[in-house]
């Protein structure tokens, strides 16, 4: 049975400032005269969105800024009404939309717990049974009778999260709230979300830019772009698709601005090109898992450089540095005169699992290892499962395949 059913949901907003009374009056006159009225430009935040969610599903909603994620959640939480289409939600909805909405700075932590709980629909009695747990989870026992305005930002966010996740509802709506507090607390929040989701079998809608988190928590992911559902399916497929799309966007952005983001250079050298090629030197945009490839770097040296070291690295599109390799041990480059060069680095048995990755490059010169050039996100490429080196289901997750083999169980005598 579907708990949430969204059919052809469209939401339009009017662009520009609010109409003035004068405009309204003019429009009324025009309407009376039978002339067309002045209309403000309209903007579709959601465009013909349809999907349905079954009980117990954990849905991730991802998309770039302005894709309509929050607008969608607002509709599900009944905060706003659609321009057309319909939504049916069966069961109670607890919004986690922005932790700590409705906190009052002048009230103490304890008072705010009561206030926030009753805003979320808990009775005083229910709050009483939960308050100890909330205080304990937020780790604010000492400060609970101090006004919130004296709290650090981390403290109030912790309290907000503790309150928000203590609400019992059939459907939880989470908008970008998991990244709160220090690392230890983030871990705790994450565990709590996982408990809510996995053990209590709640239906959860999760909006986040942290794709790794989404693909870990969710059973299904919906990708929105400019108000439309672009993809709706298993997390891995949809998240990879999202990575690709963002990469393309990043690429066009950086090409358009010509000023590369994440590039530092002293102008002593220009990077003309960097790409991957197969062993025969042909440029490729997709790499077969565990095949041999070369990183090719074309450079123009403007000033003479000595003691040059190159380093190439592979990182994910969200800048998790996976591996690097330096040239210093393989070849000592004493002098590099003005001119253009092609530098190659062979990568044997490419170790990363299928997905989208990117290259980074660093160049240092001199005995002091002065940084001459550094850039990341320079070349995006795909890793695909190869014909002979297929990826077995046992190594599907993560970034690298382990060279491992399980053995048959043996009995041990104590």
């Amino acid at each position, binding site marked *: 049975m579907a708990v949430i059913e969204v059919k052809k949901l469209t939401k339009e*907003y009017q662009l520009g400032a*609010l109409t003035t*009374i004068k405009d309204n009056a003019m429009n009324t006159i025009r309407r009376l005269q039978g002339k067309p009225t002045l209309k403000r430009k309209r903007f579709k935040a959601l465009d013909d969105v349809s999907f349905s969610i079954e009980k117990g599903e954990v849905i991730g909603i991802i998309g770039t800024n302005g894709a309509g994620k929050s607008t969608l959640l*607002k509709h599900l*939480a*009944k*905060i*706003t*009404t659609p321009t057309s289409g319909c939504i049916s939600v069966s069961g109670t909805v607890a*919004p986690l*939309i*922005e932790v700590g*909405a*409705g906190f*009052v700075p*002048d*009230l103490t932590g304890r*008072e705010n717990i*009561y*206030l926030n709980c*009753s*805003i*979320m*629909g808990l*009775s*005083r009695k229910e709050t009483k049974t939960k308050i100890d747990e909330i205080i304990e989870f937020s780790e604010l026992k000492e400060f609970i009778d101090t*006004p919130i305005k004296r709290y650090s930002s981390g403290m109030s966010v912790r309290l907000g999260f503790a309150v928000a996740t203590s609400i019992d509802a059939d459907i939880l709506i989470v908008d970008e709230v998991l990244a709160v507090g220090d690392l230890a607390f983030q871990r705790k929040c994450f565990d709590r979300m996982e408990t809510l989701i996995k053990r209590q079998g709640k239906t959860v809608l999760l909006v986040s830019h942290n794709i790794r988190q989404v693909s870990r928590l969710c059973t299904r992911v919906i990708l929105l772009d400019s108000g439309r559902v672009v993809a709706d399916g298993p997390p891995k497929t949809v998240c990879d698709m999202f990575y690709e799309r963002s990469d393309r966007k990043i690429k066009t952005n950086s090409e358009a601005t010509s000023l590369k983001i994440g590039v530092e250079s002293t102008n002593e050298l220009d990077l003309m090109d960097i790409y991957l090629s197969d062993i025969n030197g042909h440029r490729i945009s997709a790499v077969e898992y565990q095949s041999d490839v070369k990183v090719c770097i074309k450079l123009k040296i403007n000033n003479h450089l000595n003691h040059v070291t190159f380093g190439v690295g592979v990182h994910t599109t969200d800048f998790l540095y996976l591996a690097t390799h330096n040239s210093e041990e393989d070849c000592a480059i004493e002098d590099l005169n003005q001119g253009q060069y092609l530098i190659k680095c062979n990568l044997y048995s490419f170790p990363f699992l299928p997905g989208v990755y990117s290259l980074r490059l660093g160049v240092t010169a001199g005995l002091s290892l002065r940084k001459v050039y550094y850039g990341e996100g320079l070349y995006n490429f795909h890793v695909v499962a190869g014909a002979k080196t297929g990826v077995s289901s046992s190594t599907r997750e993560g970034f690298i395949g382990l060279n491992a083999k399980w053995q048959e169980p043996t009995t041990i005598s104590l």
Partner: protein
Amino acid sequence: MVSTFKNLFTYRELILVLAWKNIAVRYKQAYMGLAWAVMKPLMLMLIFTLVKSFVGIDSGDIPYPVLVFAALMPWIFFQESASEGVNSVVAHTALIKKIYFPREIFPLVAMTTKLLELGISFIILAGLMAWYGMMPSLSILWLPVIIAYTMLAALTISLFGSAVNVYYRDMGQALPVVLSLFMYASPVIYPLTLVKQKLLIEQAAGDWSNTLYTIYMLNPLAGIIDAFQGALFRAESPDINTLLPGMIAILILLPLSYLYFKRAETYFADVI
């Protein structure tokens, strides 16, 4: 309409908690705390008493300070419920954009807050009456009914006003000013008996006198204040003839005001 009341019953606890929040926030860091709630009627009473000593307003056999205080109580309750109610929706922008519950809660919360302040005023009133040696009669049992009726009057304004205020903030600015002027069109500084005397008996406005009186009585507060004073000092039950024009006005306007609010409500989060 039935579902509305059912809804409100479900949310009664939230209304109380939000009202408590308003009061707590307002008086938390104030040394005098809730005493400030009665400062306004007390000061106005003193000023009016001073003015009265120059211009001479006939208050019959009831001491003027008590009479004017008893008029100020429902008036201030009405005025502040309405003007705070009008601003209440906009004041809770953060909540409106995040969480759904029936939005009419906000004007109601503003009113509940004022209800508590009205309760405190009763303590002062009791003190004043004791000072002048006045004994209330059983007719004070009418007071809750009169106050409930005052709430309807305030809601008529605050529901419509708060919805308009979301679109045009002029409402929130204008209404308090208009209402404070309106006080002089209500029998606050002078008793209603004076108006009756002038218009109905002396026919001071000639042929227009009776019409003018009816128009005057269309203001629900005219009837309310008179009934309030009557129940307190004259051992009277509310006079239906005095209250009728105002009641008709509210009976027509309140549903309209509520409907407008409910229609506008769906766009609050988008526009606010």
